[in-house]
């Protein structure tokens, strides 16, 4: 799966999360920070992670979630890493 395809999928998920700054979703890049740029409440991150697992049909390791950075790049990397693990 291409990295841009993953980002587009992430944006689709974020459009369903009403506490995320929706205006900024038009310009999401790998450098975008969920918390600093999109103002995602920290309590909402776990719901986003659960939606990512469903959309991309995978299950993250708990340790990977604990160590997950707040940039879009970190999430894209984790999705690819988890997909490669199979």
């Amino acid at each position: 799966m291409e990295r841009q395809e993953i980002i587009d999928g992430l944006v689709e998920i974020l459009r369903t999360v009403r506490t995320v700054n929706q205006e900024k979703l038009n310009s999401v890049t790998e450098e975008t920070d969920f918390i600093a740029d999109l103002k995602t409440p920290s309590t909402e991150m776990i719901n986003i992670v659960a939606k990512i697992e469903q959309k991309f049909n995978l299950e993250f390791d708990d340790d990977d979630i604990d160590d997950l950075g707040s940039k879009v790049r970190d999430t894209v990397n984790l999705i690819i890493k988890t997909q490669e693990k199979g």
Partner: protein
Amino acid sequence: MQLKGRKVAIVGMGGIFPNCTDLADFNQKLFSNQSLIREWDQALSHGKKVRSTVSGYITEEEAGLEVVWSTIFQNYPDTYIDKLSRIPDGNLATADIGSIWAMLNTLDAIKMANWTTAETESEQTAVVISSGSAGNIILRNAWHTFFELGAKSRQGGGHTVDRTMIFREAANVSCLIKNKGVSESIGSACATGLGNIGHAYRLIKYGLQDRAIAGGVEGTALETFIGFDAMQVLSRGFSPQESSRPFDKNRNGFVCSFGGGIVALEEYEMAKSRGAKILAVIDTYFNNSDGDGDMFYPSFAGQQRLWKGLLQETGHRPDVVKVHGTSTPTGDSIELLSVVDTLGETGYHVSAPKSQFGHMLGAAGAVELISSILMLENQMVLPCLNSTNLNPELENFQTGPNWNGPMKPLEAYRDLIPQQAFAKEINHITCLNYGFGGTNSAMSISNDY
């Protein structure tokens, strides 16, 4: 210790009521003798699994809300959209339906009270709100996801705790209005609504706080209904409008309903000095327990002690007794006889608002206090709808060896129990609510004096 001379005024109120658009609509429907009870499609959809099918319920749409359903699991409300933009999305994310109602009702109460932002956010402003049940709709799906579908815990959602904890309504309201005083929830089953307002009254009366947002809510949830349906205590066999019939000979249970009521309380002199409209003055609040070890059966002795405690503090003889009056066979008769035993057979009237909107459980005491404030405002007594025939025979318990109350049948008290609303000079109202576990609550309110 109560501080002498320190009084508590009710200066604002807000609520959400079955089959009503707002407080004005509720007022109009109550005093024109209407019932707010309807057949409930949610109960009907389960066919013979559910005994009772009537309720005073409120849909999301009626509350101006839209559900955002989970994309992961069916029937799980991820969050709600406030179509009227009254509550920010961040606050909606942490709330179950009852907590949203509590926030909406709070905004209405504060608007009516005309508190400034500084007053609302003060260290002297408390929030005391609770409900009778858990955040059932959230819990149903979160636990089903984990236990039945075998999903990881996070897939049940990251808001199960804040949307279901006992303290959720007060927590959500406090986060919305940003008060810096006391914030807590008091639980006492079906006396919860009045109990929270009673506790808030004491915080002000005892000098700990100057203002409080207080009340009770019961969010529409089929689980709540089913729990009581299983106990065989819900009304059945009547048309919706005739289902709730306190004191009537043919009553066979209560109507499980939902709603919310929030009041704004303020230390009387502060309210007066800023020119606030005083809706009512709380004379006193008294509560106790039956102490007989019985979870469910009402206690005549407990209610006698309740009246004694209440009247010792006020000395006011009420013009109207707003009873708990659920429409259950034993509860209504014990309650009426304890009222008569205390106040005699004349000089006051009995009002049972549950006859019009059913039993709102944790919200009952709060919504019925609002109904009582409306009685003061309108100078009209609300009826005991459907109390068509009163028992001409003694109740079974009246013929037992341990009964020491009145020895007349309920029919002897027909004149106390109006079947229609009517005008009368009302200065003092006593509000009564009881709950499982033998908990009893009483509040006396009056016109401004």
